[in-house]
């Protein structure tokens, strides 16, 4: 629907432009430091590729976990009502606003060797700290709320009308979910998944606190860049640019306009 443009006060453009500058200027600053001559060589070094591949693998697994856990969570939050639902919603969205390093400490004292579940995990022969599993766990922890928020929003704006119609025609709940609900909210689901993936890819604080840093096992791209910036700043800048490129792609896929049609 086309709305009539209401004029904005002219002064509002100044802080708005300032905000845009604040976001873009550091990127310009970083790009100005890129050594283009050796760029390709730097981003394709063995340890860079190891970190990149570890990051992509763990982020993909984390995104799948987010889908498996987050879709049911969003459905329960959007389509049911129970006492304390508001509280539950606030709590599961906590990782969204929590400093990641705090998340890392929380994970450590839960899944660590001396944590809440340490003995049980030990009895099962599972050791999570310092493993790739720890990386995935940290990434899932921080990125799950992104999927839940996107999908719950999509579910609420889509409404339950079609689902009610399908049910009244005799479709069973699982059929309704599969044939009506999912296709209806697919754009929201996709953008939520892409956002979760991006958040997982950028995860740093919880990972370094909980999982440690070892090449090929736990040293994901952000940790690699953190390590690299003191020994080889040129390579760190080059790898950072790779992550910026990924981030731009992610925004192109998941910009808000697409999720709401």
């Amino acid at each position, binding site marked *: 629907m086309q709305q009539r443009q209401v004029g904005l006060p002219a002064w509002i453009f*100044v802080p708005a*432009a*300032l905000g845009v*500058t604040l976001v873009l*200027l550091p990127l310009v600053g970083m790009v100005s430091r890129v050594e283009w001559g050796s760029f390709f060589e730097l981003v394709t070094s063995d340890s860079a590729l190891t970190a990149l591949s570890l990051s992509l693998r763990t982020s993909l697994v984390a995104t799948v976990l987010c889908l498996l856990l987050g879709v049911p969570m969003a459905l329960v939050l959007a389509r049911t009502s129970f006492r304390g639902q508001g509280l539950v919603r606030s709590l599961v969205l906590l990782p969204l606003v929590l400093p990641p390093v705090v998340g890392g400490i929380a994970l*450590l*004292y839960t899944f*660590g*060797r*001396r944590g809440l579940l340490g003995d049980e995990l030990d009895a099962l022969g599972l050791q999570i*700290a*310092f493993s790739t599993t720890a990386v995935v766990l940290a990434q899932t922890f921080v990125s799950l709320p992104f999927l839940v928020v996107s999908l719950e929003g999509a579910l609420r704006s889509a409404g339950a009308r079609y689902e009610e119609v399908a049910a009244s025609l005799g479709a069973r709940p699982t059929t309704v979910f599969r044939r009506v609900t999912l296709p209806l909210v697919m754009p929201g689901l996709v953008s939520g998944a892409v956002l979760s993936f991006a958040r997982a890819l950028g995860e740093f604080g919880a990972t*370094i606190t909980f*999982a*440690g*840093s*070892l*090449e090929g*096992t*736990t040293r994901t791209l952000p940790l690699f860049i*953190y*390590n690299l*910036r*003191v*020994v080889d*700043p040129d390579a760190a800048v080059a790898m950072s640019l790779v992550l910026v490129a990924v981030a731009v792609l992610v925004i192109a896929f998941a910009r808000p306009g697409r999720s709401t049609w």
Partner: protein
Amino acid sequence: MKSLVLTAVLALTLPLAACGSDSDDSSGGGDKTTTLTVYAAASLTATFEEIGKKFEAEHDGVKVEFDFGGSSDLVTQIQEGAPADVFASADTANMDKLVDADLAGDDPENFATNTLEIATPPDNPAGVAGFQDLAKKGLQLVVCAPEVPCGAATQTMADNLGVTLKPVSEEQSVTDVLAKVTSGEADAGVVYVTDVTAAGDAVTGVTFPESGDVVNTYPIAPVEGTDAEDLADDFVEFVLGDTGQQVLQDAGFGQP
């Protein structure tokens, strides 16, 4: 419009830039507070905070602020223009970087030495008794990354003794290694003698006879171009003097 944006950016950032250099009055006259910013290796955290307090007590209107971190991190930040007045490194290699960049205001002076020690959780669950034990299969070993001084020293020690270490994590600073040990995640971590002393009951220290073979020397220097040049020199002298040396020795540091 373009110039408007530029003006606005400058208006926003200039006051911030001014905050960074409030140490312009090094004579410290009247009731004006002068701030001295000291960048120091993470392993100096406890000792330098104490030395800082004693320094403040002897200098009216002076406030000493610290930034503790991995020496390699700190020297990189100074090279990028961080407002440090004094730099204290945990090894000579990172101080050399400062000197090579013409950023040392004076010749660096060595003020302390430190050697390695193994830290384990209080009950030493893996029964580590010496450096060779760190190569035990299944041992959860955490060390510093090779680019930070404690990691370089660990690597040298391992090479000297012909021990192949397979750490589960390489941390960015010695305090990060200690954190993994005190939380019980790691069975053992290679840190400095002084870290074990500072950690108290939180860890059990395991000394090994070869530790004296690899000694880290700590140099300190004022940073070139500091606004508080006299004060920076004073602080360096203070660390090298009786009071500073006493604090360092109490914490387990050796004399250079």
